[in-house]
């Protein structure tokens, strides 16, 4: 079973005067798993519905392999979708629900009639559908639920039936619209890996919409970050986290949220915060204002006279078992910062304690005020300075 490439080009969508999607381009390789992630209202679900054929775009094209999908109605696109609400037919049993995509495609209107339809359908066709439903149900371990109606199932079981209905025929594309968000936390983590395993096994190209960055990063081959109708970055999870191309991406991905410092850039390209040089950009922006972004684990506590040290006050210490989040406030302008420390290190600090923090220039991301990422230059200012010392307690 081979997947088909999926290609979205210049997808635009407006509702009234509001532009929901501003020219989205995504190219998925055959069998690739792409997560669309973004805050609510960013247009990711609309994009999914456009690919499904439930909404029509104002511009753009959709190709799957060698087939244009854009002009086809939803029923002819050969895509499968799992809805957030699962959208199971409440009057049908699990088996009948799973069989619907096969029945709708293989049987005529007469053959779908109740009672006499059974008599008009060739036995072989019926057996085939039955066998396929059973096979998919066994793959998803829901064979024992086949006679039950959705009302008699738990949320997790309904979710599996919805997955089975999507898998029962081999679609060109899987579309999943927050399929895990109605499950409780434990089941969600467990089902994540199951969905990934199923997707790998079937090799069907998948678009997966979620607002949960942990889901996106852990499941997908590549993550597409969408903010306000724009696709800001489409990259592997590692690069999305470590090398965000836009400030919004950096802000959206990663918990706790990335630290941001407003800095001024001099003619040399050196970015200054409160009289301290923290980084250097290759091409200083015209307005000389940048935002420096530092991931909480990259922010270290240093000794008082560190060359890149910033003075801050401890506000709160959040103990989380595997790490300890130190909430800080910059002394100069009360910018809030978070440092992620090991529990042993973090618990030693008390509120209203004065500390010094610094980050490696290589770990300091520079963004223009408009949000674009700026290239960092070799930090000349560092030559004479010592490496940052980690404060031992």
């Amino acid at each position: 079973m081979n997947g088909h490439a999926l290609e979205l080009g210049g997808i635009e969508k407006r509702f009234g005067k509001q532009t929901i999607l501003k020219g989205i381009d995504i190219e998925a390789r055959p069998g690739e798993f792409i997560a669309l992630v973004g805050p609510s209202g960013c247009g990711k679900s609309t994009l999914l519905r456009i690919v499904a054929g439930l909404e029509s775009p104002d511009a753009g094209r959709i190709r799957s392999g060698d087939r244009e999908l854009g002009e086809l109605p939803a029923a002819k696109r050969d895509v499968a979708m799992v809805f957030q609400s699962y959208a199971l037919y409440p009057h049908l049993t699990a088996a009948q629900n799973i069989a619907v995509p096969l029945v709708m495609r293989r049987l005529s209107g007469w053959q779908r009639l109740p009672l006499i339809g059974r008599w008009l359908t060739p036995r072989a066709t019926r057996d085939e559908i039955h066998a396929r439903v059973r096979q998919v149900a066994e793959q998803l371990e829901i064979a024992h639920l086949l006679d039950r109606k959705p009302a008699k199932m738990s949320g997790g079981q309904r979710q599996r039936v919805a997955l089975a209905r999507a898998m029962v025929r081999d679609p060109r594309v899987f579309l999943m619209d927050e399929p895990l968000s109605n499950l409780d936390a434990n089941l969600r983590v467990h089902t994540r890996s199951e969905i990934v395993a199923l997707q790998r096994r079937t090799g069907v190209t998948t678009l997966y919409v979620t607002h949960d960055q942990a889901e996106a990063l852990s499941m997908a081959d590549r993550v597409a970050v969408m903010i306000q109708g724009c696709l800001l970055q489409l990259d592997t999870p590692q690069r999305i986290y470590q090398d965000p191309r836009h400030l919004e991406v950096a802000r959206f991905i990663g918990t706790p949220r990335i630290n941001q410092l407003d800095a001024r850039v001099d003619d040399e390209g050196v970015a200054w915060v409160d009289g301290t040089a923290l980084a250097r950009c290759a091409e200083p922006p015209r307005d000389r204002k940048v935002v420096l972004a530092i991931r909480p684990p990259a922010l270290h506590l240093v000794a008082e006279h560190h060359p890149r040290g910033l003075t801050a006050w401890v506000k709160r210490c959040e103990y989380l078992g595997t790490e300890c989040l130190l909430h800080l406030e910059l002394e100069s302008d009360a910018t809030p910062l978070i440092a992620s420390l090991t529990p042993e290190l973090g618990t030693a600090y008390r509120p209203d304690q004065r500390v010094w923090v610094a980050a490696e220039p290589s770990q300091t991301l520079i963004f223009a005020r408009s949000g674009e990422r700026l290239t960092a230059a070799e930090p000349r200012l560092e030559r004479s300075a010592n490496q940052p010392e980690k404060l031992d307690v």
Partner: protein
Amino acid sequence: MSESLASPSSTLSRRLSAPARRQARSEALSGWILASPAMALMAMLILAPMLAVVWFSLTDYQLGYPGAIFIGLENYRALLDDPLFLTSLGNTLLYTAIVAPLSVALGLGAALLIESETRGRAFFRTVYFLPVASLLVAMATVWQYLMHPQIGMINQMLALVGLEGRNWLGSSDTVLWSLAAIGVWQSVGFNMVLFLAGLTAIPRELYAAARIDGAASAWQRFRLVTWPLLGPTTLFVLVISVINAVKVFETVKTLTEGGPNKASEVLLYTIYQEGFSYLQVGYASAMTVVFLAILMVAMLIQYLVINRRTHYQ
């Protein structure tokens, strides 16, 4: 050891249970007291009249004449031999068989059309509902004019396309069908409103799922989603329509008075005539009991079928 432990606790429970029992009793008493006005009204206004009708039906009671003799099931036996009652029963059943399915089907159709329409939804809803809100007795005069053999608009329009008009309300061939048409006109709006309520309860995502699952046409989606999910609503609407159709009276009383030649004689009108024109209360009561029995059977069927089908969500 265990006995000495158990005895104080059991005396304690006995000591506690007496006041608890007293409190439960006083709670039950105040419950009865609070419910009694409603129960008294119910007995007076609903149960007593029904029992009175059943009792009258077993007597030869005539309004204005003193005394009534118990004659057992004699009235019911007479009903079986009464050609007027049998005609009336037959007409009522035919009328119901026309009006109920048609008004359900048209009500569903109107609801589906309005639901799929984005603009002017409130306008169409109001227009279709107008006949329900209007007084049927008053509207009957309009219908009388429309169906008039000479000056009626229906016949005039038929003449325009070269068809011969008929005496809609004056001929025994057409009168029941004409009354049925008015009945349908009157009840479609009400059924439509009930169907609209049922339609809004169907989750939108089911239609999206149906489209992706291969239900390409609106008809396929109707069969896969709308019709089964409207099942309980449809049953309810059907029973209400049957009950309303069996109760047809105003149009008959105002337009045809059962004629011509008893062709539009219906149950309620026959009961009315027996009871209030001929003052045969006992006989009319027997007819009323039969009438009530028909309504009860309709409601019982609905109750049984709804109970058999489990609720979906």
